[in-house]
C-alpha cells in the first residue's frame, strides 16, 4: 500500500472530521480539548508523514497513494509529492496553534467554532492530497464553507460584507475553473491529476484553460486587482481565521499554479507570463504603498501579504529551479510569518480590543517579551537573512532575474517598501513613550501565548539557517516541472555575450557555456 502500511492520508483527514462531529455535540470546554487533541495528533501524523517521505533520488514522485473508485471516473485518489507534503505539514503545524489562539478569544458557540475549524483542516489536507481532478475541486471549494462561517459568525462588526465579498470573488473564479476541468476530463479522458500533468493539451485550447484556472488561482493568491477581498476578510475574521487564511488558504493559489497551470498548460503559461509579471509588479509597488498608510494593523498585514504573494507569482513564472523553489519557500515562510504577525496582533487585540495602530505605543516598556517576539516576526516579514522569508525571496527574485531584469528590479523594491511599512508599524505599536493608561495596564505574554509563538519563531529561524530540510523534499518535483517547461521557456533579457578570452581563467558552470555559445551571434551585433 505505502511505506507505512496504513492509509495515513485518509486517516489525517478522517480524524479532524470525526473530531468535528464529536465537538458539535460537546460542551465548550470539551470541544476545546477535543479540537486540541485532534489537531495535535494530526500534527504528529504530519511529522510521521514527513519522516517517512522518501526523498531519495530514485524515490517515486507520488507517495502514500490510495485509490478507491467511487462511481464512474470519480475516485478517492490520494497521494502526495514533496510540494504537497510541505504544504500539508504547514497546515497541520498551524492548526493546533489556531485552536490555542482561540482558547479564550472565542466564547460564543465554541463547539460549533471548533467543529468548523476541524472540518476546515480536513478540507485543506484534502486539497493537497487529492489526485482526482474533481476531488480536488470539491475540497478546494468546500474548504471555503467553514471559512465563510468563521468570518460570518465569529467575525467583527462588518463581517457580513466581508464574507460576502470573499464569497463572490472566490466563487466567480471557481465556476470558470470547473468548466475548464470538465473540458479537460473529456479531452484527456482522465481525471487523474498525475496523468493530466503529463497530457499535452492543444496549445490553443491551453490558453482558454489557463485563463479559467487563472481566474480562480489569481483570486486565491490574491493577485492585484482581485485582492480587495483579502483585507476585509482579514480584518473581520477572528485571529485564528486570519491565521488559516494567510497561512494556508492563500497558498492554495500558488499550489494551483504549481500543480495545474504550469505542468498542464506549459505553452499557455509561457504565453501569459507577461500578464503575471505585470500584475505582480503592480502588486508589489501598489499594495506596499497602500500598506504604508493603513491605520488598522490587520489591514496592513493583509496588504503586505498581497505584496509577498506577488513575489511568489514572479518566482513561479520564472520557470526555473530557483524561481519555483523560491516561490515555495516564500509560501512556507509567509505562511509562518504572516500567521505569526496575525497572532501578535491577536495578543494585543485580546487585551485592548482594538486593531487601531494609534491606540497603542510604547509596548516595549511594559511588554518587553512581546516586543522581542514581535520584532522577530517583523524582521522575518521584511525578509532579513536568517529567516525563511529571505531564502524564498532571494531565490525567487534570483530566478526571475534570469527571465527579466526589469521584473526583478521592480519586484525587489519590495524589500525597501517592506522595511518601510513594517518598521513604521512596529515603531507605532512598540516604540515611543508609554503614555496611555489602558495600554500601561496590558500584561506581558502568558504561557499559552508563548506556547503559540515560540514554535513559530523556532521554525522561521530554522527555515532561514538550514532551508535544506524544506528544499530537499520538493527538489525532484520542482525539477520535473522545470523540465516540462523547458521546451516552451523563453530566453531571458540578459543575452550574455562571451568575454575577451584570457589565459588561465577558470570558467563558471556549464550553464554559462551554453549561454555563451547561444549568444555568440548577438555579440557581433551588439558591438
Amino acid at each position: 500500500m505505502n511505506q507505512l502500511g496504513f492509509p495515513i492520508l485518509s486517516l489525517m483527514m478522517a480524524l479532524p472530521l470525526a473530531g468535528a462531529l464529536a465537538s458539535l455535540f460537546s460542551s465548550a470546554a470539551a470541544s476545546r480539548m477535543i479540537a486540541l487533541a485532534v489537531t495535535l495528533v494530526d500534527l504528529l501524523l504530519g511529522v510521521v508523514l514527513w519522516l517517512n517521505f522518501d526523498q531519495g533520488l530514485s524515490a517515486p514522485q507520488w507517495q502514500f497513494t490510495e485509490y478507491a473508485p467511487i462511481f464512474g471516473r470519480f475516485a478517492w485518489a490520494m497521494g502526495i509529492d514533496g510540494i504537497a507534503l510541505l504544504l500539508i505539514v504547514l497546515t497541520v503545524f498551524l492548526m493546533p496553534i489556531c485552536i490555542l489562539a482561540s482558547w479564550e478569544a472565542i466564547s460564543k458557540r465554541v463547539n460549533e467554532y471548533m467543529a468548523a475549524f476541524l472540518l476546515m483542516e480536513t478540507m485543506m489536507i484534502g486539497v493537497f492530497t487529492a489526485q482526482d481532478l474533481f476531488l480536488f475541486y470539491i475540497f478546494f471549494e468546500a474548504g471555503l464553507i467553514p471559512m465563510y462561517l468563521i468570518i460570518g459568525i465569529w467575525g467583527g462588526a462588518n463581517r457580513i460584507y466581508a464574507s460576502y465579498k470573499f464569497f463572490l470573488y472566490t466563487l466567480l473564479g471557481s465556476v470558470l475553473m470547473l468548466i475548464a476541468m470538465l473540458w479537460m476530463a473529456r479531452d484527456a479522458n482522465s481525471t487523474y491529476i498525475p496523468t493530466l500533468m503529463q497530457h499535452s493539451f492543444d496549445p490553443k485550447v491551453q490558453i482558454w484553460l489557463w485563463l479559467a484556472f487563472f481566474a480562480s488561482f489569481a483570486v486565491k493568491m490574491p493577485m492585484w486587482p482581485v485582492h480587495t477581498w483579502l483585507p476585509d476578510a482579514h480584518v473581520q475574521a477572528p485571529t485564528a481565521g486570519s491565521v488559516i487564511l494567510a497561512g494556508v488558504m492563500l497558498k492554495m493559489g500558488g499550489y494551483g499554479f504549481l500543480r495545474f497551470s504550469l505542468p498542464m498548460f506549459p505553452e499557455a503559461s509561457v504565453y501569459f507570463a507577461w500578464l503575471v509579471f505585470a500584475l505582480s509588479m503592480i502588486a508589489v509597488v501598489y499594495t506596499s504603498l497602500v500598506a504604508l498608510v493603513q491605520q488598522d494593523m490587520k489591514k496592513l498585514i493583509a496588504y503586505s501579504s498581497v505584496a509577498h504573494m506577488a513575489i511568489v507569482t514572479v518566482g513561479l513564472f520564472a520557470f526555473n529551479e530557483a524561481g519555483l523553489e523560491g516561490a515555495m519557500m516564500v509560501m512556507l515562510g509567509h505562511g509562518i510569518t504572516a500567521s505569526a504577525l496575525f497572532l501578535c496582533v491577536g495578543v494585543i487585540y485580546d487585551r485592548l480590543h482594538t486593531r487601531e495602530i494609534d491606540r497603542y505605543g510604547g509596548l516595549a516598556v511594559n511588554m518587553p517579551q512581546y516586543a522581542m517576539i514581535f520584532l522577530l516576526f517583523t524582521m522575518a516579514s521584511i525578509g532579513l537573512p536568517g529567516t525563511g522569508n529571505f531564502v524564498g525571496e532571494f531565490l525567487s527574485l534570483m530566478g526571475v532575474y534570469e527571465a527579466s531584469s526589469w521584473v526583478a528590479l521592480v519586484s525587489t523594491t519590495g524589500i525597501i517598501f517592506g522595511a518601510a511599512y513594517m518598521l513604521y508599524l512596529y515603531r507605532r505599536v512598540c516604540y515611543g513613550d508609554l503614555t496611555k493608561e489602558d495600554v500601561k495596564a496590558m500584561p506581558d505574554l502568558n504561557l499559552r501565548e508563548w506556547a503559540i509563538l515560540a514554535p513559530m519563531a523556532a521554525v522561521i529561524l530554522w527555515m532561514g539557517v538550514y532551508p535544506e530540510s524544506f528544499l530537499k523534499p520538493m527538489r525532484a518535483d520542482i525539477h520535473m516541472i522545470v523540465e516540462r517547461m523547458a521546451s516552451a521557456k523563453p530566453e531571458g533579457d540578459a543575452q550574455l555575450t562571451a568575454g575577451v578570452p584570457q589565459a588561465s581563467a577558470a570558467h563558471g558552470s556549464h550553464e554559462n557555456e551554453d549561454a555563451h555559445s547561444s549568444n555568440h551571434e548577438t555579440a557581433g551585433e551588439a558591438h
Partner: protein
Amino acid sequence: MIQLIVFLPLLAAIIAGLGNKALGNVPAKIITTGALFISCALSWPIFIGFMTGGYEEGFVVPVLNWLQSGSFNAMWELRVDALTAVMLVVVTTVSALVHLYSWGYMDEEPDQPRFFAYLSLFTFAMLMLVTANNLLQMFFGWEGVGLASYLLIGFWFRKPSANAAAIKAFVVNRVGDLGFMMGMFATYLVFGTISIPEILNAAPSMAGSTIGFLGYRFETMTVICLLLFVGAMGKSAQLGLHTWLPDAMEGPTPVSALIHAATMVTAGVFMVCRLSPMFETSETAMHVVTYVGAATCLFAATVGTVQNDIKRVIAYSTCSQLGYMFFAAGVGAYGAAMFHLFTHAFFKALLFLGAGSVIHAMHHEQDMRYYGALRKEIPITFWAMTAGTLAITGVGIPGTLFGFAGFFSKDAILEAAYAAGGIGHTAFALGIAAALLTSFYSWRLVFLTFFGKARWAESEHIQHALHHHHESAEEEGDSHDHHHHAAHSGTGGYRPHESPWVMLLPLVVLSMGAVFAGLIFHGAFVDPEGGAHFWEVSTLFFDEHLMHESHLVPMWVKLAPGAVMLTGLAIAWLAYIKNTDWPARFVAQFHVLYDFLLNKWYFDELYNAIFVKPAFAIGRFLWKRGDEGTIDRFGPNGMAALVVAGGRVTRKLQSGYLYTYALVMLIGLAAAITWAITR
C-alpha cells in the same frame, strides 16, 4: 579557533538577550564583554601570523550547508585570509573596548542587558560579514549589522527622534541592498556561482562581454560592479545614500564609535577591496567609485565645518574619511584604502569615545556652543581627543617615520591618487581640499570644546544638572555659597568630572593606536614590497607598480597634505581662539552659504519632498481611489448593487441567508459535476 571568534559573541548575545532582566546587569555585562575580549585575544595571533608570513595561504572553514537550489549553492563557511585578519582585529578590538567603555557610559541605564546583547549581536554579524566566502553570507552579515544598527540607533526607543533615525537608517540601507541583491542575481547569472574566489577567478575572462540590463546593453562587469557598489554606497554612507549616518548619532555614543565609525560603515570599503580583482575588470566602475568617493569626501567635509553637535561633526568626518577610502580603491590603491580603514577605525573610535567622555562630563550636553575650557577639567579625555585629532588631520613630517596614524594612511591615498593620473588627479585635488576642511573642523572641535572660556551655564542640560544637584545639596544642609555667585559666570558653578577608568582605559588604548598604528603597520599595508607580500594571501588586488609610483610623486604633492593641514589648523586657531568674533561675522556675511552647509545641502528636505511625502500621498490615493473607489466600486459593490436592485435581497443578505445560498450553489455545482462525469 575562528569558529570561537565568530560564534562566541553570538552566544553571549543570546544569553544576555534572552536572560535580560532575569540575568541582571552585571552578569550580562561580564558575559558579553568577556566573550569579546576572548574573541579579540584570539584574533590578534591570526593577524600577526599573516603579518609575519606565518600562513602560506588563506583557509576556509566550512560550518553548515545553507542554500542549494538547482546549480546555486551557498554554504555557511568562514574564510580567513590577510584581508579577513585585518578586519578581525579591527572589529574585535574596537568592539571589546567599546563593550568595556559602555560599562561606564551606560551605567545609569536601566536596560543594560539589552544594550550589551545588541552590541555583541552586532559584532557577530560583522564577523560573519568579514569572514564570508560567498556573496550570500556577506549579505547575511550585511543585513545583520543593519539590524543591529537599527536596534542600537533606536535603543532609546521612547525618543521619537531616535525611532525616526533608526527607521531611516534601515530603509536607506535597504535602497543600497536592492543594488546588492541585484548584483548578486547578475553575478549568479553570469558566473553560475556566488562563491567569491570562483567569481574573482572567472571575472577577467568576462571583461569586454556585454549583457542586457533593463532593456539596454552594457558591459557585463560594469553592471555587476556598479550594482554591488550601490550596496556599498548605502552601507558606507556615500553621497546620495549618506543621509542616514548623521541621524544615526541618536544612538548611544559607544554605538556611534563601534558601528558608525570603526566597523559597519567600512563594510562597503571592505566589500570593494574583497572583490577588487572584479572591480579591476571594469574601468567605468572604477571611475564611478573614484568620483563618488572623492565627491563624498569633499561634500561631507564642507558640512562638517559648520555643525554644532559634537557627534555630528565626527559623523560627517566619518562620511568624509570613507570617501577617501573609496577613491583610494577607485584609483586601484586597495592596500591604501584598507590601511586607512584600519587606522581610521582606531582614531575615529577614539574621537567618538572621547566625545562620549565629554558628553558624559557635560551631563548629556552635545552642543559645542555650550562647551569650552574643558582642558583642565577632563585632562585625560583632552589628551586622548588631541591624539585622535593629530591622527585624523595627518600630522607628521614628510620623508621621515615620524607621524600619527592618519599621516601614513591619508598621505598614501593622496599620493597614490596623484600617481594614478587621469581622474586620480581630480580625486587628489578634491582630497586635498577635503584635507584642509578636515583639519579645520577637527581643530575647531577641539578648540570649541577644550579651549576658550566656559560657556556651560546656558546649556539646559547643565542647568538641569545644577538644579538637581542644588536641591540635593540643600537637603543635606550643605549649600555652597559660591554656587550662587558662579551662576552668573560661564561655568554656572558646574564641575565637570572626568570619566571612570573603564571609560578612560579604552581611550588610552585607542590613543596608542592613533599614535602608532601608522608607523607600525604601513610596511605591511602600503609598502610596495611588504604590501605585495602581505596581501598575497588574500583576494585583495595589490598594485605594486602604483605603490612604487606613489613614492616617486613630485615633492609638492608630498608636502601638500601637510601644508593644508597647517592652514586648516591656523584658520581654526584664528577663528576660535584668537578672534572669536570671526565665526559670527562670517555667518552674517555669507549666511546663504552657511545655511546651505548647516542644512547639509538640503538633502533631507529634498528626499522628503520627492520620496517620503509622495509615497504616503500615493499610498493614500491608491487605497481610497484605487482599491475602494475603483476596484470595489465597480467590482463586488457594483455587483451587490445589481443584485439588490434586481432581487431586493438586501435584508436576506444581511441576516445571514448568504450561507444558505452559498451552500445551495455549491451543491448545485457538485450535482453538475456528477452529471458530467457519469453521463
